[in-house]
């Protein structure tokens, strides 16, 4: 805490002020900003980078062994990419779920994000809180609520029978309900970046275009969409990545009718006790996600997104 040395602060307002003796003397030490970033950097180094390195190391270990750093083999990757291995089916399922989740959520969330910015006015804060709150309820509790809703003699089935109708459809334990679960779980992750993105659209610009006679579709396509794109992109990326890694939906709602890729990784780690194979799979998935994230993030300006205009 005491590290916030006065002599070294370089607030933006005074950034061009000539540096005095102190500045020269401290030039070789870390800047204030870097020192503030240090605790986070240490945490993420130990808790994020190191485990990824461990996974990478394990992926080159002898299959079905635990001798990490002592052996080097590409056998695990060979197993994964062997055409007779069906793990690619899980990968295709996960990608498919993720793509559908992104596309449908973009359509579902857009009107709400628009409403939060332009329509709801003083209720916007309250509506946002209503959408945030489910994030603080564990996803398995919420998904289990859907099981109770859709199960035989559950809320839907029971209500329909009570009304004298033949009863609810059997949707549980199908891929469709897994997709529904993903839409349900990841809605806030699409909604909030999208809302931030739409907040970047200046209202005067929309008004000016309308005064000049532009139609609503034209305004949407030429002004709203391009200006809100950074937020929309972040939302899409976030939901895509989270949906690729999702397991709870397929397990709880899907009843394992489809095995998704993270579930395959988990199986390798638990039942089959083949950590090196699981690691190799995790490395492939991580590389896929990593390339995607870095590509999209390299095209975005976070300062502008979060408030520094």
């Amino acid at each position: 805490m005491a590290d916030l040395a006065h002599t070294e602060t370089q607030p933006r307002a005074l950034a061009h002020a000539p540096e005095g003796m102190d500045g020269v003397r401290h030039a070789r030490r870390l800047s204030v900003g870097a020192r503030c970033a240090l605790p986070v950097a240490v945490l993420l180094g130990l808790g994020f980078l190191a485990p990824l390195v461990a996974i990478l190391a394990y992926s080159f270990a002898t299959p079905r062994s635990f001798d990490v750093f002592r052996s080097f083999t590409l056998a695990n990757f060979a197993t994964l990419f062997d055409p007779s291995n069906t793990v690619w089916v899980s990968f295709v399922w996960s990608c498919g779920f993720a793509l559908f989740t992104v596309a449908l959520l973009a359509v579902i969330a857009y009107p709400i994000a628009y409403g939060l910015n332009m329509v709801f006015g003083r209720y916007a804060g309250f509506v946002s809180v209503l959408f945030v709150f489910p994030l603080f309820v564990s996803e398995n509790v919420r998904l289990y609520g859907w099981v109770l809703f859709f199960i035989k003699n559950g809320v839907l089935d029971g209500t329909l029978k009570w009304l004298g109708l033949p009863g609810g459809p059997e949707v549980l334990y199908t891929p469709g309900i897994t997709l529904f679960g993903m839409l349900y779980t990841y809605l806030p992750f699409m909604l909030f970046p999208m809302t931030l993105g739409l907040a970047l659209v200046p209202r005067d610009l929309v008004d000016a275009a309308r005064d000049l006679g532009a139609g609503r579709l034209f305004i949407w396509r030429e002004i709203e969409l391009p200006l809100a794109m950074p937020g929309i992109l972040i939302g899409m990326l976030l939901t895509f990545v989270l949906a690729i890694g999702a397991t709870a939906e397929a397990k709880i709602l899907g009843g394992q009718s489809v095995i998704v890729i993270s579930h395959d990784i988990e199986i390798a780690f638990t039942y089959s006790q083949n950590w090196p194979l699981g690691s190799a799979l995790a490395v492939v998935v991580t590389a896929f996600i990593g390339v995607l994230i870095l590509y999209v993030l390299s095209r975005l300006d976070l300062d502008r997104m979060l408030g520094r205009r």
Partner: protein
Amino acid sequence: MATSLIRKQKRTNALIWGWTAFVLVIVYLPILCGALASFNKSRYFGFPIKTFSTDWWDKTLASFEIGMIVKTSILIALVVTVLSVVIATFGALAFARYDWTGRRLYQKLIILPIFFPQPVLGLALLLGFNAVGIQTSWMTAAFAHLVWIVPVVTLVIAIQVYGFDPALEEAAYDLGCSRIQVFREVTLPLLWPGIWSGMLFAFLLSWSNFPLSLYTAGADSTIPKWLYAKMVAGYTPMVPALGTMATLGAAVLLLGGGLVGLLARRRRPA
């Protein structure tokens, strides 16, 4: 012409309200189903519910095992809250307040853990702990939560930092304050609303986290982890009962926290 435009706008607004309300009903429907199931007297769930009772709530509250699990969950959430707020406050200053070489890179690196699937992160951490020979327990689970929650809290506080005028700190220095005084008397009070929301986020996200706890808590169990084990092993009405209790706890905390934040903001002179 103009009136038809206004009428059109009104109709669009009504549609947007309607759609939002519909989605909100769907969002809360499963939570309500869980609450309903927890008040069902019979051992097996059936709807419409024939007899309501609070038996399963009483049983859940009386269970020693569940008491332990709730304590572990609270302990982890408290540790995560304290540590993440301290780390993230400085992280947010580095993110939004200071211009330094490497800031752009730092901004992108810090959000990577948020963009990473948690089940994979949990397994990777498990592997990492195993590789260095650390026994997994509630402490490793708290560490795992930190990896994901610190970036989230950093972003929450950073939004507050963006609206912060560095000239105020400079003025305090010019009036002769020491750096600790400036931090305590100027920086912290100005950032307080963001730090307070960050604390709420940290506690509640840790409280509700499932994928990280599942792999990194070892023999210890948190509420979501215990619930999942029971969901897989077979239905008992204690599952919706405890789930509803955890939800209510989160709601009370969020409401209380929001209220305190609001009161504090109102009391402070503008």
